[in-house]
């Protein structure tokens, strides 16, 4: 029995427009409940929607980035269902005539590539938020709920893929690439943890080429959760099938704490959405010239940039993937390259130490206290052997924390590497004299002792001794 995992994703991203999709209320995050609402997004009697031009332009931009066809005439539809976070008990969305369809995007997984077809990209409005009041604060077991409509009406772009993904890892890579794409286009904050990027998945197991029953998985609130949930579900379904069971078509909820998916039990009515064209909005016919303008204005997209950096600068692929995950980071790298230093070295420093420091201090790359120029300076100092690689790490940290230039730090602290052979020779001799047992060990071939002795040399020279030189001398002396 040949089993294959089949996954399709449905992603919603909040567009970072200033105002909501159908009214002028601010889209700022947070705020007192219902402080960013009006008759339109509260569904007051007599209120009417008026579509946000930027939201439409942003959606078209995303559709173009995903290689989709823009529908010449699309309309909005009403999706009718009752839920307390719905101001009108219908959601203005798109149904059979969406803004765009028929695109694709290529992802890299390991040493393979996978083309993922995009079924559609369309526009709709977000719902409000329910705060469940009860012991656990979750919906199950709540005593009552409180409805906040600040989020209601925020524009959402929905991306639906064909079931072309073949593993949880592929799903994760896809989501990361989609997130990067949204970030490159500057149309969404795309923070899964804040809810501005949401993902539901459909997963099934095909046996010997026969498509299996698909199960919908919801409530995955991070890339990690996505991966874990799909891994769990994949296993659950495979075991079920292997043991002769049947997979039930249902919606399952990912429980992060328990590490499992559970069937979602709600008393919602049967899902007959009774879609019909939204009579309060008129059709969209994007001007082909406008679309062409948007298309020609597309920035270099993440994967293309990744491949170019590998090609142009000889970066290892995994580092290039890391750098191009975020546009600002890749921009930083390319500005650093302008200093003339070795791109691979620069890349390693950024992808390694710098990103770690940014994460630690929760600072986005665009507010990085060390300018690309400064990083170039640091790398130059190492390249010129003025400081060792190890010393450079400390200099980097100091530059990051104080804002001072690396060269300034090295000069003011006298951190320049000691290359003076005579000086090193005398320190080596001192260390050997002070540590006879270790010296003896090294003479007898115990390599461990070298480490210890080198440590002593570094202590005496405050880390500034040229490590290669010192190491050579140490070994020579104790041959």
């Amino acid at each position, binding site marked *: 029995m040949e089993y294959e995992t089949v996954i399709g994703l449905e992603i919603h991203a909040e567009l970072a*427009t*200033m*105002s909501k999709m159908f*009214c*002028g*209320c*601010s889209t700022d995050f947070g705020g*007192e*409940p*219902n*402080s*960013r*609402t*009006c*008759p339109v997004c*509260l569904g007051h009697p007599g209120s009417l929607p*008026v*579509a*946000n*031009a*930027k*939201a*439409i332009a942003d959606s078209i931009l995303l559709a173009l980035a995903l290689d989709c066809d823009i529908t010449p*005439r699309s*309309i909005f539809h009403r999706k009718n269902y*009752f*839920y*307390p976070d719905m101001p009108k008990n219908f959601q203005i969305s798109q149904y059979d005539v969406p803004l765009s369809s028929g695109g694709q995007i290529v992802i890299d997984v390991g040493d393979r590539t996978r083309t993922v077809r995009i079924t559609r990209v369309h526009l709709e409005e977000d719902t409000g938020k*329910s*705060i*469940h009041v*009860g012991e656990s604060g979750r*919906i*199950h077991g*709540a*005593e*009552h*709920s*409180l*409805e*906040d*409509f600040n989020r209601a009406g925020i524009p959402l772009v929905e991306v639906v893929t064909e079931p072309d993904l073949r593993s949880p890892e592929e799903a994760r890579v896809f989501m990361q690439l989609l997130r990067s794409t949204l970030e490159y286009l500057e149309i969404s904050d795309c923070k899964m943890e804040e809810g501005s990027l949401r993902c539901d998945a459909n997963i099934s197991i095909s046996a010997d080429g026969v498509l299996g029953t698909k199960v919908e998985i919801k409530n995955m609130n991070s890339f990690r959760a996505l991966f874990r949930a799909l891994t769990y579900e994949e296993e659950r379904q495979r075991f079920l099938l292997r043991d002769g069971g049947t997979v039930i078509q249902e919606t399952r909820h990912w429980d992060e704490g328990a590490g499992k998916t559970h069937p979602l*039990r*709600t*008393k919602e*009515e*049967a899902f*007959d959405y*009774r879609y*019909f*064209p939204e*009579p309060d*909005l*008129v*059709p*969209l*016919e994007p001007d082909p010239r406008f679309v062409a303008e948007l298309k020609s204005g597309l920035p270099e997209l993440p994967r293309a940039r990744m491949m170019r950096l590998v090609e142009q600068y000889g970066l290892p692929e995994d580092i290039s993937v890391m750098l191009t995950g975020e546009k600002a980071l890749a921009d930083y790298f390319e500005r650093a390259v302008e200093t003339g230093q070795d791109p691979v070295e620069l890349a390693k420093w950024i992808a390694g130490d710098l990103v770690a420091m940014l994460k630690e201090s929760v600072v986005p790359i665009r507010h990085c206290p060390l300018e690309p120029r400064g990083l170039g300076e640091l790398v130059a100092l190492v390249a010129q052997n003025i400081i060792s690689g190890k010393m450079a790490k400390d200099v980097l940290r100091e530059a990051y924390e104080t804002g001072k230039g690396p060269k300034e730090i090295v000069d003011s602290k006298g951190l320049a590497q000691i290359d003076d052979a005579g000086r090193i020779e005398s320190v080596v001799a001192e260390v050997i004299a002070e540590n006879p047992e270790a010296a003896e060990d090294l003479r007898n071939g115990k390599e461990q002792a070298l480490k210890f002795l080198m440590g002593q040399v570094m202590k005496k020279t405050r880390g500034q001794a040229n490590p290669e030189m010192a190491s050579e001398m140490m070994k020579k002396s104790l041959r």
Partner: protein
Amino acid sequence: MAVTIEDVEHVAKLARLALAPEEKQTLSRQLSDVLEHARVISAVDTTGVPPTSHALPLVNVLRDDVVRPSLDRDDVTGNAEWAENGAFKVPRII
């Protein structure tokens, strides 16, 4: 095409209306009558006729992405005595 009691119950659930048994009976009858009368349109040949969802030839009516003032809290919750701290209280969902 008769609208049965089951149909009525199903539709009432979609429309979130609690109906008394007599109401269901009456509605079953009345809806059947109206739909029977409306059936006359089923006989009309509409091949190739597009539906009119909008009487106007308008397209692309949009607004600029500009923030406008939102409502004061009093205006938001003024028509809901059950509101709590600016949020709308509702009975449990599950």
